[in-house]
């Protein structure tokens, strides 16, 4: 009896091993995995990123592929949930045998998946997770965007210097690493710029009624309200704030960037500001070419997450080309060596902490358009 159990376990294990090895090491193609929120509360994040990375790999495949092979992208949906992100990455690595992983947008989900990639020694490149903790998970984790230390400072500077606000109120998502991180940096920097945080309230992702918090904030009479959240909640918050007679502009981070933001918040968002990775109005030829190609392919204007998805995919491809191999350790070294890569979202150099240092762009919401306001250079 015992023997039979052992035998069947052994057979199963052997099959699993055979299955897991088969696709990744195939001679014809290089398999790259991507996990993202294709559905759920932040569905446009994952969808945009996927479009961006697909476009990049299509171009690469048309140009002859990588190391003489075609690239195959496998995208897993994590339903906007951290626990699903962990499952998705485990599946990509163990079953699909991917050589590298792209993802996620939301820091909480990147944080859930990063230790798994690190453990398997599979390089992970996050296109747009800005929380500093993400790349601290290990030396196989990279990002091609700025961190919240930079973003929060830019937001505080913009609020204090350009909007000339002295009193700010804060409304942040207590269960979201991204939001909690931005709140810390913003309040610290805003005070350094001579401002004052007069009230602070929190919510949890998925909440839909914010009137109680907003009523408390209103009584503190802030000149701006800093809302470092994601677009679903931000749009709802904007509407309810205007209902309660709050006229102060809302200011936030790149989590606002979504084609859905305007659909949710509508006119309530007019005159609000947020920081982002790039602006579609940027006249540089690289940006305009990308915007035109994207529009031709998908019939929509690319948001920053699509642009970062595109950049992340190209940087990863470039690293594989330079490494001349699909071995995790070699791709990792090549990624760490990325210097002045000409991306759509600016020139990308990976620093010793595996982060990119890039300018922050401030945008204003005007009738459904995100209008360029200010470019804030790193460290300036």
């Amino acid at each position, binding site marked *: 009896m015992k023997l039979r159990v052992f035998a069947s376990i052994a057979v199963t294990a052997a099959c699993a091993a055979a299955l897991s090895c088969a696709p990744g090491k195939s001679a014809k193609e290089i398999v790259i995995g991507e996990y993202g929120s294709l*559905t*759920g*509360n932040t*569905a446009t994040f994952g969808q945009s990123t996927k479009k961006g990375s697909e476009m990049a790999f299509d171009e690469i495949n048309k140009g002859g592929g990588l190391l003489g092979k075609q690239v195959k992208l496998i995208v897993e949906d994590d*339903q906007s949930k951290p626990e699903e992100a962990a499952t998705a990455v485990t599946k990509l690595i163990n079953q699909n045998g991917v050589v590298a992983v792209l993802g996620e947008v939301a820091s909480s989900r990147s944080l859930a998946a990063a230790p798994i990639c690190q453990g398997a020694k599979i390089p992970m490149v996050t296109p747009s997770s800005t929380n500093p903790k993400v790349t601290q998970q290990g030396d196989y984790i990279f990002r091609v965007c700025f961190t919240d230390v930079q973003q929060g400072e830019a937001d505080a500077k913009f609020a204090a210097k350009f909007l000339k606000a002295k009193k700010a109120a804060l409304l942040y998502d*207590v269960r979201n690493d991204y939001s909690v991180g931005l709140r810390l940096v913003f309040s610290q920097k805003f005070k350094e710029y001579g401002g004052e945080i007069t009230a602070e*309230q*929190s*919510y*949890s992702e998925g*909440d*839909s*009624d914010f*009137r*109680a*918090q907003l*009523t*408390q904030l*209103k*009584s503190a009479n802030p000149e701006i309200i800093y809302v470092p959240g994601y677009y*679903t909640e931000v*749009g*709802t918050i904007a*509407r*309810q704030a205007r*209902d*309660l*007679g709050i006229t102060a502009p809302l200011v936030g981070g790149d989590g606002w960037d979504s084609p*859905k933001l305007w*659909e*949710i918040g509508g006119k309530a968002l007019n005159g609000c500001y947020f920081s982002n990775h790039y602006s579609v109005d940027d006249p540089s030829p690289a940006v305009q070419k990308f915007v035109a190609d994207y529009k031709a392919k998908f019939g929509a204007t690319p948001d920053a997450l699509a642009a970062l998805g595109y950049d992340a995919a190209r940087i990863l491809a470039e690293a594989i080309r330079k490494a001349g191999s699909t071995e995790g350790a070699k791709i990792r070294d090549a990624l760490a060596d990325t210097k002045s890569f000409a991306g759509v979202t600016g020139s990308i150099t990976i620093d010793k902490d595996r982060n990119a240092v890039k300018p922050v762009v401030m945008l204003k919401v005007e009738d459904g358009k995100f209008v360029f306001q200010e470019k804030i250079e790193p460290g300036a």
Partner: protein
Amino acid sequence: MTTFLQQLVNGLSLGSIYALIALGYTMVYGILRLINFAHGDVYMVGAYVGYYVSLRFRGDEPSFAHALLAMLVAMLACAGLGVVIERFAYRPVRRAAKMTSLITAIGVSLLLENGGQLVFGADPKFFSSAAPHRELALGGVRISSEQLQVFVVSLVLTALLLYMIHRTKTGMAMRAVSFNLDAAKLMGVSTNLIIALTFALGSAFAAAAGVLIAMAIPKIDPLMGIMYGLKAFVAAVLGGIGNVPGALLGGLIIGVAEVFTVGYLSPTYRDAIAFAILIAILLFRPQGILGRVEKEKV
């Protein structure tokens, strides 16, 4: 003071939603002694039906007639859904042990939640309110037309329900079924019809709540019924399950308690407060505020 009054308004309008959902829990419990756990999900379906109806008016000038139409269609659709659920899920196990119906209810709830994700998609949708948006400013306190609608509709529907139960023949039949199902049957009451009617009414109220909150908030998703359903259930227990005015009172208390907790204590306890109240009420007054130990119940 303004802040306090504003929070009270916020609480009462949120509480009205809980009250409308709680009515359905309380009616079904009154008649069948069954906690219909799928009730919160019927509320979700109601919100979606309202959403699809109001999509037809997208681009038109918002009007109360359109909003009312969206609400009525949603109420009718959910009344139908309630009857179907009763007929195919609960009636076959009505004579079985209580636990069987309870588990069936959980099954129906899961079916609606996951079915909802399949049919409507897992992404949240956003209601473009069909009703015109107005604001009333009393001193510093702002009351939006959506908040007022919720409050008025819940009062009117509760009043109508009370009238029906106490002043009409159907209401008498409902009370009879609630008092003793078998005896009512012997007296010539068509019990199956009365039970179906109870489900239809309760589900229609939930649908009204769904459309109203969708207009006020305005985000809807297939899992929105879980938390609202649970809190409305607490509201029903708090008011005295089986008692109609109790459901209204319980709903309003839970709504106000929740808003004050968020405003003055910590937003993190938003969901915890309802369940803390549930534990307290079960310990100190299990029959609820207005509940009497086994008397008139519908």
